[in-house]
């Protein structure tokens, strides 16, 4: 995006009448920040410190690493992050190219396309779950009607079940990221494309030399942000497969909740803490990136 913004350097003169009255600039600033600072301290800092304290016993990590489900979950998480997120972004990139076509019906379609994102996940993911049931789901029932054979156990084989978790995840979050990339694409000047067309550039060349350079930064930050969030997405796995069969489709977020459910609170915290080496660098990078003022 090439949004032109005004740097927010404030030309307040010390003598300006309104601002020197009452609390003064500094006082107002403190006062207005106070609610958030209080909220942050009470409901973020304290719980986080407490979480670390709960997960600070080294013995718990030995226990965690002994659990075969942990390593499965760790691998799954990596696959989820790398495959699901990248696949999602390639799709989002292509779809955004489709949705920027200026046709009224395509704009109507865009409205429909947002639905998976706008709907709460519980009912929609449960709909997937029912659809994929190997005995009474619609897919295998139709399959039986045509072939008189039982179809594949979509959620009964770990590989298929995990693939479906990825598909559900993409289904749910694809619209949001497509929307972001559409916004990015719309910010590219049309003149560039017109000039390129005149020069006889192919569509691939246009993408390669105009679209991609303009979108690259947005694309990469979005991908990274999405990876961080995907790490915390337990709905797609939890509501679809519950981590099964055989605890083989867990990711770290669901494993944490699984431990909580089997009365192993500390293991749950520890499982989530082991994800920190993955996310802290990304969070660090993103915070630095995102907090940079637009003018800097």
């Amino acid at each position, binding site marked *: 995006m090439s949004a032109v913004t005004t740097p927010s350097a404030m030309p307040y003169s010390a003598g300006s009448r309104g601002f020197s009255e009452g609390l003064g600039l500094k006082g107002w600033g403190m006062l207005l920040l106070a609610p958030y600072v209080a909220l942050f301290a009470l409901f973020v*800092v304290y719980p986080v410190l407490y979480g670390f304290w709960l997960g600070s016993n080294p013995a718990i990590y030995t226990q965690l690493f002994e*659990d075969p489900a942990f390593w499965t979950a760790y691998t799954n998480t990596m696959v989820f992050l790398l495959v699901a997120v990248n696949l999602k972004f390639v799709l989002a990139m292509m779809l955004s190219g489709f949705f920027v076509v200026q046709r009224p019906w395509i704009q109507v379609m865009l409205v429909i396309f947002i639905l998976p994102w706008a709907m709460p996940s519980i009912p929609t993911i449960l709909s997937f779950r029912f659809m994929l049931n190997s005995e*009474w789901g619609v897919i295998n029932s139709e399959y039986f009607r045509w072939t008189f054979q039982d179809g594949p156990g979509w959620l009964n084989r770990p590989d298929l079940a995990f693939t479906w978790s990825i598909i559900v995840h993409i289904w749910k979050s694809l619209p949001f990221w497509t929307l972001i990339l559409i916004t990015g694409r719309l910010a590219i000047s049309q003149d560039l494309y017109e000039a390129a067309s005149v020069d006889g550039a192919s569509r691939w060349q246009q993408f390669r030399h105009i679209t991609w350079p303009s979108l690259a930064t947005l694309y990469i930050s979005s991908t990274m942000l999405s990876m961080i969030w995907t790490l915390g997405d337990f709905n797609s796995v939890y509501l679809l497969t*519950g981590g099964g069969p*055989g605890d083989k489709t867990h990711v770290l977020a669901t494993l944490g909740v699984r431990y909580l459910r089997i*009365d192993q609170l500390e293991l749950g915290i520890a499982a989530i803490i082991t994800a920190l080496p993955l996310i802290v660098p990304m969070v660090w990078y993103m915070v630095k990136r995102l907090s940079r003022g637009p003018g800097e």
Partner: protein
Amino acid sequence: MRVLRRLAAGVAAAATMLGVAAAPAQSQETLTVWFTKGFYAGEDQALERVVQRFQQQTGVRVELSLPSTEDCVTRSVAAVEARTPPDVGFCTTYDFRTTGRWAFEGRLEDLTPIINPIKDRFQDAALATTFLARRDGQKAYYAMPIQQQFMHFNYWKDLLEQSGATEADIPKGWDAFWNFWCDRVQNGLRQRGQRINGIGHPMGIAASDTFYSFLTWANAYNVQIVDANGNLVLDQPANKANMIKAVETYAQIFTRGCTPSSSINWLDPDNNVAFHNKQIVATHNATISIAAKWLDDSNNANLTAEQRAQAKTNYEQLVRTIPWPNKPDGTALPTRAAVKTAVVFADGKNKKRGLEFLAFMTQEENLAPFVEGSVGRWFPVTKAGVNSPFWQADDHRKAVKAQYEAGTVPFEFVYNFRFTAVNAENVWARAVQRVAQDRIAPAQAVDEMIARIRQLIAP
């Protein structure tokens, strides 16, 4: 960073102040009680009546909340960790998951003072399961038996007959019994073009049904897992060899295609669901919830008259409850009993009234309607409860009572609470799945099982 330090320091102060501010001005004494939401309206109504009478008698306001089965235990665990538990807790999975551990860790109030005076009213076997050890080795009654469950076998009489067999054909011998459902019944139905499996065989790791069924299966093969002192004896050669057979045969029901392929992922309700929808002819299930559902439906005002009539026929004629077959060695297989326990939490705010409430709740006239409100799903733990006409009222209940009278055996976690973790992780189901799905040798799966159990029960 200085700001951060100041923040952190301020938090503690603010938290204390907030805690004080948020503590309500106590106008009336309250008692917080969490009970698992009943499966049937009758249970909740019976409980609410008890609560009301207790409130009238004592003037204490009872804050009753009824979370669903899974939420109940999860929330209790979190509350105990946070040292903010209710005063009284009763979740139907405490015994499987938490009671023994909580007692060991000193999270529970000693109930001996309220249990001793009424000791004789309880069945010995049921009461024995609540005599639990603390960390220092001292034993006491840390939990109150409320109700219990056994393992049964249910089948559809009409489906059985459609397959060309009759009830009289059902064998009593172990192998013959399972082969009957697997081969004769399932094939009979498949030949008639029906997409039905002979057995609903719980295999899911997240289901307590699976370990209940599997451990019963292991009993049939005479596997002893722990001794009376809670020491692991599964690794002794005879036990291990029997366990290998148990794992192998349990997995075979799946690999032979006698159970729906989704049973590898089943949660607790799923075998019931498959059964009700006639996708399986038979299933083994802890409690007679399968039959009870039809009884409940036959009285459900929201169903049409036709549906109610069908439900009544199902309960009275079509759904059958029988015990498991004899062991492979030809002797009778006693059922495992799981005694559901209520507790008073050591960190509760009103423990005194909590004890009073539990004592009140377990008076026969209060407990019986609660247990019987579950229309047979839960079996009484008192001697008087067993003799209630309720358990003579129909064939399902008579079958349950007969199983009770034939004698019951407890779970391993009664001897060693650390087995709650073994069950929670469902090491058993994992071994079965290793064989059924990963196709490893049963002996290897059992080696893995024993290695994992050792890790889990290490002090």
